[in-house]
């Protein structure tokens, strides 16, 4: 009887440890980004899929629907200081690249919808923007701060990333050219 209790206790202990390790692994795969890890190794990871509410009120935007075009994916928030400096540069870039198989998409993260809409109106932003208040994309892309910009090619693979604000037009254009270059 004592031996059986000990065996059950040992199995239970091993099961609990295995469950905790599984939970840790799951958490790491959710938060730890394969995108940034593969980019750092010179790879071209697939851009994590998302379907998010558009801030212009025109339904949802599915990233997969943009296949065939290069995508400039900019993560921002209205409360983020450097985002205020960067946005006019992105808007000018959008005007410059519009109609050249390039799409700009802003992802407003961990923010109030109302604040985000005010921000876009204040800076006269005309490219698409989606709302991710819960920050569901942050971990999957490996966003480390705001703003952060990912350049996705026509096949949906991330080619380049700028952590922090895009400093100037040359930076932006270099990223877009990488996304447009043949794989």
């Amino acid at each position, binding site marked *: 009887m*004592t031996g059986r*209790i000990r065996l059950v*206790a040992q199995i239970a202990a091993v099961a609990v440890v295995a469950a905790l390790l599984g939970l840790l692994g799951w958490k790491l795969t959710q938060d730890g980004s394969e995108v940034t890890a593969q980019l750092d190794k010179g790879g071209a990871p697939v851009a994590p899929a998302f379907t998010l509410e558009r801030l212009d009120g025109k339904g949802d935007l599915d990233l997969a629907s943009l296949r065939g075009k290069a995508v400039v994916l900019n993560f921002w*928030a209205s*409360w*983020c*200081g450097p985002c205020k400096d960067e946005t006019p540069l992105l808007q000018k870039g959008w005007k410059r690249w519009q109609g050249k198989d390039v799409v700009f998409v802003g992802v407003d993260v*961990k*923010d*109030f*919808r109302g*604040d985000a809409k005010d921000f876009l109106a204040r800076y006269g932003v005309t490219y698409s923007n989606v709302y991710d*208040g*819960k*920050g569901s994309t942050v971990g999957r892309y490996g966003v480390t701060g705001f703003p952060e910009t990912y350049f996705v090619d026509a096949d949906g693979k991330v080619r380049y990333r700028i952590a922090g604000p895009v400093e100037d037009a040359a930076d932006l254009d270099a990223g877009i050219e990488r996304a447009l270059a043949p794989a």
Partner: protein
Amino acid sequence: MRAAALAVIALVLAAPAGASEQRPSAAELESELVCPVCESTLDTSNAPVALRMKAFIRERIAAGDTKSEIKASLVDQFGPAVLAEPPKKGFELVAWLLPLAGLALGVIVVGLLAWRWSHARGGDEPADVAEPLDPALERRLDDELARYEP
């Protein structure tokens, strides 16, 4: 009488909770909500988004919103992770049940160990065996007892 007393006690205990729900203070809400960027409670954070959330809470209190309404509004914007305490429903219920399950498991384990320990001790000790009395002494005891019987 006892029921009435219990009802009074329940009312006394429930009154502050009701007042807090209807007229929450900014301080209590800030201690019950988490900054989504720094993941500490709002009252301990000065991150830009936390400052914005604090301002929102004050605006909504001034507008007469209840505590639940303010929390629901923030959950709608930032998701349930903004609550310092997980909701007692859905998957988040696990966060409440797991410690209780752990406690129950601990009680069972301690109980089993105590049971095993007490039985092991019982087995080691020699059983109490009554020594047979000397027949003369037994006869004398019977006589003495007979004297006290009516």
